């Protein structure tokens, strides 16, 4: 049986004006468990708190009810007061008799009656309260960044600069991501490589950063502060620590027919390759799908020419196990496949290309050494048609493309159009748009410059059909403002393909128990207030894996995610919210309902041995809540049919006691 003290606050006249505080404290005296009841002008004042502290000591109180303002105002205050008097802070309940009583009622009798009932409900609850202690867990002071694009790079650098070790896992042989493939960046037209590669070098040289390139995360266990991660380092058949990146092997390799991913397959690379000159790590990789030595044991030329002796055809995939305190997902994006958009003839003509391919075509390090030449015949194109919103903003019922706006296409198309007109003023450039969306610093100015200063033809309308005819592309399009159908004889058509999250994101989300939306973008913990955190504690989001965004936004989010990680790793111990779910193993039947509704992946199952009624033992599957991860929403408690799952601080019995008291 509890020994409960009731403290009714007047809040000056805020409460006492419409509630007879004396009557309330008197009425609550006779409630079960109540051994002391009083009222005072300002309970939250030092003097008021002293009354509480003294009463706790004098009457050996095991729980207190404060009838006062909203718990949102002073619950924390009174919990501290209780703790100072040696009472568990979770033995405090607040009856909200100000916001939800005195302030909304005018009549003293009404207000008093309601205040008494609210007080009784709080007393009924405290009678069933139990002391709660927040759980503590240690923090592994190391972060994992999954994805080595600009988002991952920035996050890793910021965390590392704060003094914490960081590992970057990148599936490609080099970090750099999509940004490394870009030519110039809008709206300033900086060269992408010029601003990215120094950061890549910083990463490579940073004492706190390790790069696992050509690797992927295969298993994630544990929870915030204590993740156990398995990383598969794929065999690259080159000893990373020995290779000097001199590139002789790539020159000598006789097998030069592998499509060059870095150039979007527009040219070929050798079977042993370094993706690009500034790759980090600058280490060769042998592509087992093309290497003759690995395929049929005939060749071995690279090993012969390698003076460092770095080639190792026997290398195997390697699993690395590491502990982390925080994980950042930075898995990035890809343009969508154009397979479902036959009308643009992407698969019929080499001269219909995506914008990312166009980037490579204009990049000095690209397949044409930066000269804008048609992929089909290497001729200079004179008429170029850019098509916007290819696969973006499609209705779900259209069953192709994505429903969202890809956000970056308007700006990069303006950039492409402008650069083309700048370098090749003899070119006619048409841009077909539905809307031009340029919110962002200096963005609209940039777009207007493309139109006004560079003479790009922006046409409100859409391309309906592209038909290759001879060496030309016949573009049939609508000009909605002129109310005309246009037929343009183009040399090159550039499609602003929608972007989608990288395919690796979905399985990763499953491993992280992080939630995703229907488009496979990671969901943020709160769309406005916690945009860089996943709902899963200890998992953070950086860059386009969370939603389409451009480079400045990506970098901001990357740094924000880093700040969150640093905040987490700076702690020695994590204190949890003690109001977490817990499962009564004797009643749990392991049905998985709770696990399925948990937004945080806090519930796992263990096979445990139990004594059965017939005195034998049997193994049963039961739920186990990770209190460090549980946030205490209670979704599981209702999903559980047997009532095995309950929520500390808001137990079934406590809520029902409140219901009973209110309905009495």
């Amino acid at each position, binding site marked *: 049986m509890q020994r409960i003290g009731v403290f009714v606050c007047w809040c000056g006249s805020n409460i006492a004006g419409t509630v007879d505080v004396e009557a309330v404290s008197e009425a609550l005296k006779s409630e079960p468990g109540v051994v002391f009841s009083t009222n005072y002008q300002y309970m939250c004042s030092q003097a008021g708190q002293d009354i509480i502290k003294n009463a706790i000591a004098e009457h050996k109180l095991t729980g207190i009810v404060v009838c006062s303002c909203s718990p949102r105002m002073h619950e924390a205050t009174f919990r501290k007061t209780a703790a100072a008097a040696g009472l568990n802070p979770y033995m405090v309940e607040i009856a909200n008799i100000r916001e939800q009583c005195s302030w909304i009622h005018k009549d003293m009798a009404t207000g008093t009656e309601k205040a008494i009932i609210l007080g009784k409900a709080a007393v009924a609850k405290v009678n069933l309260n139990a002391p709660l202690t927040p759980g503590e867990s240690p923090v592994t002071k190391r972060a994992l960044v999954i994805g080595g694009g600009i988002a991952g790079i920035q996050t890793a650098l910021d965390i590392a600069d704060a003094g914490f070790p960081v590992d970057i896992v990148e599936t490609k042989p080099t970090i750099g991501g999509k940004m490394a493939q870009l030519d110039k960046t809008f709206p300033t037209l900086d060269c992408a490589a010029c601003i990215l590669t120094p950061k890549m070098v910083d990463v490579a040289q940073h004492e706190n950063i390790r790069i696992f390139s050509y690797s992927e995360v295969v298993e994630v266990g544990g929870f915030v502060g204590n993740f156990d991660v398995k990383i598969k380092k794929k065999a690259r058949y080159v000893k990373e620590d020995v290779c000097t990146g001199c590139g002789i092997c790539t020159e000598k390799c006789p097998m030069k027919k592998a499509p060059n991913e870095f150039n979007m397959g527009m040219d070929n690379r050798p079977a042993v390759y370094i993706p690009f000159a500034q790759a980090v790590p600058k280490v060769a990789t042998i592509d087992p799908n093309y290497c003759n030595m690995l395929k049929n044991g005939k060749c071995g030329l690279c090993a012969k020419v390698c003076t460092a002796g770095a080639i190792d055809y026997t290398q195997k995939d390697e699993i690395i196990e590491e502990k982390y305190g925080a994980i950042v997902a930075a898995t990035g994006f890809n343009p969508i496949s154009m397979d479902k958009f036959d009308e643009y003839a992407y698969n019929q003509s080499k001269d219909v290309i995506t914008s990312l391919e166009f980037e490579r075509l204009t990049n000095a390090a690209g397949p044409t050494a930066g000269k804008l030449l048609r992929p089909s015949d290497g001729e200079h194109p004179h008429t170029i048609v850019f098509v916007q919103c290819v696969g973006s903003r499609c209705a779900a019922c259209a069953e192709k493309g994505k429903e969202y706006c890809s956000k970056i296409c308007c700006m990069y198309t303006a950039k492409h159009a402008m650069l083309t007109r700048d370098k090749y003023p003899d070119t006619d450039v048409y841009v077909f748009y539905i809307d031009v969306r340029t919110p962002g610093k200096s963005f609209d100015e940039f777009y207007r410059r493309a139109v006004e200063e560079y003479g790009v033809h922006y046409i409100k309308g859409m391309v309906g059909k592209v038909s290759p005819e001879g060496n030309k592309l016949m573009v049939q399009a609508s000009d909605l403002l002129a109310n005309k159908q246009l037929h343009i004889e183009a040399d090159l058509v550039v499609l602003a393909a929608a972007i989608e999250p990288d395919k690796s994101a979905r399985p990763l989300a499953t491993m992280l128990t992080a939630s995703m939306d*229907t488009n496979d973008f990671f969901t943020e913990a709160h769309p406005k207030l916690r945009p860089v955190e996943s709902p899963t504690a200890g998992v953070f989001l950086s860059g386009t894996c969370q939603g389409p965004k451009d480079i400045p936004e990506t970098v901001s989010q990357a740094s924000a995610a880093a700040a969150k990680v640093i905040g987490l790793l700076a702690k020695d111990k994590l204190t949890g919210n003690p109001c977490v779910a817990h499962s009564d193993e*004797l*009643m*749990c*039947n*392991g*049905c*998985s*309902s709770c696990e*399925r*509704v948990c937004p945080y992946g806090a519930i796992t*199952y263990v096979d445990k041995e139990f004594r*059965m009624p017939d005195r034998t033992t*049997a193994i*049963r*599957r039961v739920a186990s809540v990770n209190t460090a991860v549980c946030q205490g929403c209670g979704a599981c408690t209702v*999903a559980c*049919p*047997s*009532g*095995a799952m309950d929520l500390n601080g808001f137990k*079934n*019995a406590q809520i*029902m006691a409140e219901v009973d008291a209110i309905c009495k």
Partner: protein
Amino acid sequence: MQKVTSELLVKKASELLENGTVTRVLGWKKGEFSYDLTPAVFESGEELIKDFVFSDFSGANFSKYLIKETKKADGKVLVFLKPCDSYSFNQLLTEHRFDREKVYAIGIPCEGMADVDKIKKNVGDGIIDIISDGDRIVVKTLYDGDKEIAADDVKAERCIVCKSKKCVAYDELLGDNGEVIDSERFDEVEKLEKMTDDERFAFWQNELSRCIRCNACRDVCPACTCEKCVFDNPKSGVENKAISDSFEEKMFHIIRAFHVAGRCTDCGECSRVCPQGIPLHLLNRKFIKDINEFYGEYQAGAEIGSRAPLVNYTLDDIEPVDAVKKGEADNA
């Protein structure tokens, strides 16, 4: 009349016992009369030959027994699954209630089970024997000699509106697999939905007032597999044994139906076993119908591992107020 015979099943089971594939067999055991078969565990061919029966009265669904039986000993259990049983089987696997490795499941076709109460209503009291013969049933009676009735006339309600003749889980299938049927199982629910609030209340008040809280509906239900039911657990705060002032039985049946909502495969065992003849399956079917209408067709147990509608959501689910209105609009 069932298409597979007891003899065939006994032969199959004996073989599997003999070659060591299984160590025991869950089957229907002969009773005192022709209609009172009891679920039993058989451990030898002799036992099977002596007592195993598969007939129009083999209604009992064995899926739930597997929870207990698979834990009992090593070796596999042979279970015969009628199509509707196979859905329960999958649902239990979805909920990790038994180890699939310890079961050898044989899917068997089912032509629908007979309802002995219907037979009694049809031919009167004093049934000495019941012989199935194709689509006719011959009943030997104490007072009126032999009476012949059409099998269809005494088919159990749940079999008349059978939802599927397709076994969805088995290691081995006897005969050809059937199809999912577009049945009229929601007709009764719709009839109730079309009533006024007052009529519906009166209907359920009359039905539920007969409840004696024997818990047979719960105890037979393959979805009710809690280690301890909230209604048996004094700590749950809602434990009750008694029917009292017409509230407790409503609480019990509403919460029970809610707890199995999205998990109930509509096997109809609850109504079959109710000693008071309360049409409990209508509560479950109401939930199934609502789920189908609100969230898209969902059949619990159709596949292992599917996500039950109540542990799932979409961003644009129907609002509760519209859900209730929808029922109303359908009435109009």
